[in-house]
């Protein structure tokens, strides 16, 4: 009769744990398959300096799609177009003057690149009703979109969505964290 050897046992144990760990990492039944969307994480504190808007209209050519590496203004850290976040005061969706050059630069990019598309993702800090914060984030996104439409973008190029308070960038519970989470992020299609 054949006993399970100690060595076989240990192999089975570790192989089983490895397989289980692999399987446990997968989604369980209810979440449907979806094309993986890369998480966009704009660099923190990405406020445009006043007057930086002019830098985006000179230098490298503002053509082509949002993807690509060399010479892509959307990714060039020296270009205001790489700045993607607009920050808001508490309970507010008013756009502060310091962000207007950034918004104008992105609007002009859309105007020049008619096939370019973006999503503006609105966010709120962690305080208050989840659903009201979805609406507040939506307001913040819509406000920036409206400005971009006035500056040359077209409606079909911009979708506005809200994450409410569900996807904070800063997990803290203080004023600094809240300020960082009250923001819009601009994400171009294909990013």
């Amino acid at each position: 009769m054949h006993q399970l050897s100690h060595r076989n046992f240990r192999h089975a144990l570790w192989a089983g744990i490895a397989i289980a760990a692999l399987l446990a990492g997968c989604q369980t039944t209810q979440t449907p398959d979806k094309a993986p969307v890369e998480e966009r994480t704009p660099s923190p504190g990405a406020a445009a300096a006043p007057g930086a808007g002019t830098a985006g209209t000179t230098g490298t050519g503002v053509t082509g799609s949002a993807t690509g590496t060399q010479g892509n203004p959307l990714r060039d850290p020296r270009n205001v177009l790489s700045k993607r976040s607009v920050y808001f005061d508490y309970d507010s969706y008013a756009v502060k003057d310091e962000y207007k050059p950034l918004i104008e630069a992105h609007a002009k990019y859309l105007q020049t690149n008619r096939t370019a598309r973006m999503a503006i993702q609105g966010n709120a800090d962690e305080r208050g009703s989840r659903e009201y914060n979805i609406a507040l984030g939506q307001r913040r996104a819509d406000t920036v979109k409206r400005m971009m439409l006035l500056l040359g973008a077209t409606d079909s190029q911009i979708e506005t969505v809200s994450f409410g308070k569900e996807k904070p960038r800063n997990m803290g519970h203080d004023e600094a964290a809240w300020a960082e989470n009250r923001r819009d992020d601009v994400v171009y299609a294909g990013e």
Partner: protein
Amino acid sequence: MLRRLRFFATLAWFTALVLGLASNPARAQLTIEIIGGGGTTVPIAIVPFAGEANYPYPLTGIVGADLARSGLFKLIDPAGVNPRPARADDVRFGEWTARGADAVVVGSVTPQSEGRVEVRFFLLDAVKQTQLAGFSYVVAPSQFRATAHKIADIIYEKLTGDVGVFSTRIAYIAKQGPRYELLVAEADGYNAQIIVTSNEPLLSPVWSPDGSRIAYVSLENKKPIVYVQSLATGQRQVLANFRGSNSAPAWAPDGNRLAVTLSRDGGSQLYLINADGSGVQRLMSSAAIDTEANFAPDGRSILFTSDRGGSPQIYRLTLGTGAVERMTFDGSYNVSPRHLPDGKGFVFVRRDGGRFNVAIEDFATRQVQVLTQGASDESPSVAPNGKLILYASGNGGRGILAAVSSDGRVKQRLTAAASDVREPAWGPLPK
């Protein structure tokens, strides 16, 4: 060949074991503790049923736990009464009033055919020396938990005059690291079942009036989308995925339509939609944020949150006339309205001095009473008997659930061992 077979058998066993531990919903199971009792409690003795100890399933223990957790009962220890009564006729009332009990519950479990048993119980008023209730059920012992909840419901109703909610279920969201789960558990927190799991946020679960479906919001596609999912089959369909954000589902009392908040036409506005996603119909047009719709029990009006007056407040829309009336006037932030099931008022969340608390307003008097004292309380959900309000609590730290009675006296805390829990939704009474 045999050695290889044994190898794979052992492999399969270990895989199953580790997998079972990894995806165990018990991590998000709720523990409920009472931290504040009602003004007056009914002292009640629950005598273990004759024959109950022969089965591996608890019965009277669950009845007692249900009643104690309601905050309205004080359990009197039945120890020392010999012989233990199992029938109404066996109860000597003086023995029980001497122990301070106003009410006594006795019963028995007797085997029937095919492994089933008859559970028989009696509820007696020890002071008036009368029988208040007597019922029997023929069940499999594996159904003892559900039977205990039914017994507790009957005792609760006979002694308080209100419908019991021990046989209901609650839904809630649990977050552990990057993983979100929508769970449904019995009202005492047991038997949590995972309904949805996702690596992106889930929020706003709401039960259909018949308890067969749950609508919820998911961010899995990088925008809020509303789904309706059947609990029996696990199948779900998209209710609303229009351009922009889709959120804040609320069932109409007939279960055929929902109100939702959509940004497809600009801003956040209220719409009606059929439960299959067809027939979108705009409810109102405003230049404001309109969201968080909640139907009145008679289906004729909707409470909602709007900032049309300059700050988020609660308004009521009468569906027949289209008239809109403001309902909250204190403070600069009143949101998340939920009707009481008797239609006489609503609970909501108000911000005062930087703190968010659950409050209740009476329609007739317009009086407001603040019910909770946490720093950031949100998402109230009312029990179908109107007596308890579940809500989410947490001060930036770990999220827990809590419950408060509609008069503010009874307080419960509901925690999950390894998860942040939020967004509770109390299910309807079973049919």
